[in-house]
């Protein structure tokens, strides 16, 4: 995917996630190919990926930065969030009980990955340099 590229390196701190959302939304709006709903979905998916990255760094007390690369072209937008938080296997996440099960309320976390999967057209979790790279793609409407 060639096209306009913006890259951000942010401290692994919660206060910077809103800044990433702003930048990604600005890139997503730049050529009018995405609907407002698609842009809102992408903002949320990117926010979830950044939150996971920051929490992974926090668990290791890492001072490394989180890298966000955003690429926009005529087909859509691709956002990669790379951390150095030690890596994780998304397939190892526990399945939540169904929402009709009263024990569901024991799970206050773990909704981020399912949200990401539901909100973007394509998602890929890859082992990266000492961490994880999450690649998100939202395609333009035809």
């Amino acid at each position, binding site marked *: 995917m060639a096209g306009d590229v913006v890259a951000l390196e942010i401290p692994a701190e*919660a*206060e910077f996630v809103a*800044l990433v959302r702003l930048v990604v939304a600005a890139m997503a709006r730049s050529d009018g190919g995405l609907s407002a709903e698609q842009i809102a979905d992408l*903002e949320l998916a990117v926010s979830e990926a950044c*939150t996971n990255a920051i929490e992974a760094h926090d668990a290791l007390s890492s001072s490394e930065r989180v890298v966000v690369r955003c690429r926009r072209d005529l087909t859509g937008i691709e956002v990669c969030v790379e951390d150095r938080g030690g890596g994780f296997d998304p397939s190892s996440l526990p399945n939540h009980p169904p929402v009709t099960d009263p024990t569901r*309320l024991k799970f206050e*976390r773990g*909704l981020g990955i399912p*949200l990401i999967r539901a909100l973007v057209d394509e998602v890929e979790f890859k082992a990266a340099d000492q961490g994880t790279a999450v690649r998100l793609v939202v395609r333009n409407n035809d």
Partner: protein
Amino acid sequence: MVGGRMDLVLDVNQHGAHCVLGVRGEIDVSTAPRFRECLIGLVNDGHRQVVADLSEVDFLDSVGLGVLVGGLKRLRSHEGNLSLVCTQGRILKVFEITGLDTVFTVHASVAEAVAET
């Protein structure tokens, strides 16, 4: 506030037996701890019927959902309840995707929420 966006504003009002927590701004990993602290404080102060008014929330992520689930669990353990007011499509969509729209009672207005017995 980042880039002119509203951070998070919380205000509490009593409507009869209901305590209404008005939430404005964005609920994410940065602001959710204050939201959680506020909800816990309400329960600790003895409130049992709490309404979280999310009609002016611009952004809600999974951390914010977790705060709401935790609040509901805490209130139910005290024989109380947490209901929601939500009108924005992008916020309702988050509840629908996660199935939490079937866990919470979601109202279209504060008046409707506090009319609930």
